[in-house]
């Protein structure tokens, strides 16, 4: 007899029926006792104190058996019961936010798969009818709004735009734009425009749509489209160059562009410059002039570069080594619109031999590197510069 009974009990269908029966009695009693319907369930939001974007949406049932119909169900059924949406997306055809559902005793918890967004308003909705418990005796729809304000911080700022000079070659290639804090990424090019001040019109489609950010997401490398900046390359032939020598331009950054904090720049940022003759000459260290400091001092080694070179590469591709080839620790400074490179050593200079080691990928403003011009005209049998290795060196001694 006992065996027969336990066999039945193992069957899920009997479990379900028994549970349903129990629930019927439970809910009838609860109602008969005059407990208000809404007391069966309570909806609450438990936000993380240090980060309001992280939160749990919780429905607490008067009895954990009220969750019986959700056992072994799928994500979609959970979403019908408890959903989180942006207030603007309450339309039934739109899916709810993804996340993880779990039970803890009487609690049904929903943890969104992604942090909520600052500046967003969300609505959590609990729909007990979707539990299909009995009749519609427990149908008290609950909802609660949750808004996350923008942080109380200053708006972001553009702290620098390189090249810092106001005269750029007509085949200029790239800008480095630095921000006070990380900006929103993804389809950022709508925030940039190039205005030809001489012709009083916008230059159509000047940028290469490839987002290149520094690891801290505070420096963007913004390229003019290389195919339009080189004579003879297809886009240049079909659409024309971006810059014309002798004309004045304004690089504009939209005030609407927001930082990850949610705050927009607020004011338009402009970088004005004049295009001058194209630069098709490769930079060469033979044209550089070294002004050497005296031994025993920490005065800078000053290198006059003959022309402005690439801001980022001047910081990453130049180094000073000692007589043993060991890197000398120190600080790099740039001056005169990136045409002067200075090196301040951590320790005083010794009376010894040193060398300035330069990576040959170092480029000028038009993408010509020490190793190679930006473009080679094969029809002219123009020779690439004689093959250079990864580095070239400029020896000097301190007296």
């Amino acid at each position, binding site marked *: 007899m006992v065996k027969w009974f336990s066999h039945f009990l193992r069957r899920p269908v009997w479990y379900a029926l028994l549970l349903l029966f129990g629930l019927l009695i439970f809910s009838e009693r609860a109602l008969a006792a005059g407990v208000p319907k809404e007391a069966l369930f309570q909806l609450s939001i438990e936000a993380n104190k240090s980060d309001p974007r992280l939160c749990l949406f919780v429905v607490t049932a008067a009895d954990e058996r009220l969750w019986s119909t959700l056992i072994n169900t799928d*994500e*979609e059924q959970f979403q019908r019961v408890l959903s989180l*949406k*942006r207030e603007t*997306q309450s339309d039934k055809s*739109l*899916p*709810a*936010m*993804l996340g993880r559902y779990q039970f803890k005793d009487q609690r049904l918890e929903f943890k*969104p*798969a*992604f942090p*909520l*967004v*600052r*500046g*967003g308003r969300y609505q959590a909705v609990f729909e007990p009818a979707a539990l299909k418990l009995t009749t519609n005796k427990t149908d008290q729809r609950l909802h609660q709004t949750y808004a996350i304000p923008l942080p109380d911080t200053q708006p972001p700022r553009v702290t620098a735009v390189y090249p810092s000079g106001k005269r750029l070659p007509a085949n200029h290639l*790239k800008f480095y734009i630095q921000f006070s804090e*990380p900006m*929103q*990424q*993804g*389809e950022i090019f709508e925030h940039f425009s190039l205005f030809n001040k001489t012709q009083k019109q916008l230059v159509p*489609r000047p940028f*290469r*749509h*490839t*987002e*290149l*950010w*520094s*690891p801290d*997401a505070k420096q963007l490398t913004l390229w003019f489209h*290389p*195919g339009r900046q*080189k004579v*003879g*390359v*297809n*886009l240049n*032939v*079909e*659409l024309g160059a971006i810059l014309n020598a002798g004309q004045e331009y304004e690089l504009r950054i939209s005030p609407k562009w927001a930082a*990850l904090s*949610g705050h927009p720049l607020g004011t338009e940022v402009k970088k004005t410059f004049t295009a001058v003759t194209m630069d098709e000459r490769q930079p060469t260290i033979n044209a550089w002039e070294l002004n050497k400091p005296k031994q025993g001092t920490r005065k800078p080694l000053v290198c006059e570069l003959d022309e402005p070179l*690439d801001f*980022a*590469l001047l910081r*990453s591709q130049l180094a000073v080594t000692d007589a043993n080839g060991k890197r000398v620790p120190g600080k790099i400074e740039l001056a005169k619109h990136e045409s002067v490179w200075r090196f301040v050593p951590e320790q005083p200079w010794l009376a010894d031999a040193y060398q300035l080691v330069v990576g040959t*990928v*170092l*480029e000028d403003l038009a*993408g010509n*590197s020490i190793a190679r011009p*930006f*473009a*080679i005209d*094969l029809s002219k049998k123009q020779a690439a510069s004689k093959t250079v290795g*990864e580095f070239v060196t400029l020896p000097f001694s301190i007296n």
Partner: protein
Amino acid sequence: MIRSRIVKAGVSMVAVMLLLTGGQTIQAGVTQDAGSKYLDNVQKGNPGFKSVGKITFGPGGLLVVADPAKATITVIDTHDVGPLKKLEKKVPKIDVAVAASMGVEPDQINIVDMAVNSQSGKVYLSVQRKTDGQPAILVIDEKGKVKNLDLSEVDYIQVALPGGKDSKIRSITGVALASDRLLAAAQSNEEFANKIYSIPLPLTHGTSADIYSAETYHVAHRKWETKAPIQSFVPYSNKGKNYIVGAFSCTPIAKFPLDELQSGSKVKGTSVVELGSGNRPLDMLTYESDGKEWLLTNTFRFHWQKKGMFGPSKWWGVRVNMDYLDAEDINEEAARRDVKQKQGPNGIEIVDQLFGAVHIDKLQKKEIVVLRDNAGHLDLEIAELP
């Protein structure tokens, strides 16, 4: 003609194994096999993406994910190995559903890439929220429902591109899992340079790519030799030699030999076809039709409204007979597509199914999944290729 698409060869091998084994153990068997052949020192947990970029499927449910912000490539064993359930019908405005699923407005997401698991038919999207950079891998099932690939507890390996945290590599333009190696193409955020990374199999967690090419060149307009960034590529082998076939910003299709690739070496591509200027290639795949092998690529053309240009959309695509890839050393004489015609020269054809195609990936045989522009929104559907 001896030719094989390396990735697809791997898939079919796994498919054969599927047939040979049976029952519940099949999936585990296949996954373990794919895992042991391709992955070593597999981790369990959260890969900790800082960003998600290009994605692609290898055999056995292995999903390759590029993280440009961390300059790493992650391979996740999704254990998603079928059975095949194709998208039942077109899903209009999938971007709206994706945005709602991530709790933001449609203009606040960026669907970076799409990859189709040809074993299960599921469509995977790499998505970033613009508002806070939150990355996600979302999965679209046969009903068109959006699900989350929960990254908190996955089996994965992660390899770094050389340079580690200080790497200047900030845009990984393509990834592919070939039968003997993982390939990646990436761009620097400083010098105008493009690198191809090659990591031999099995991929071992915590290692770094050690073979790479320093620079890539192509010849544009039959005259100008310039450095050029690869935008998309497929592995390709012919006559026993391995290549990458890549498409560039300005837009020749070129092939690069891989066998001689050594650490730090410069590799020069051979331009085989020019598609026309102003195109940014997006995806590339190969397929067979009527006994011919075709290279299919979709591109974004920003000056598509220019007079005389063919086509109704700024997103369009073309198929190229792969016989063109046999060409050797023809940089200056590369075949040029007639930009004012639908076809021509012979074997280079605009494919109507790719008009508006923002992303494509192969499902099986002549079927592809297309994420298609629809007046600023994106529809997801299956298309049959010619």
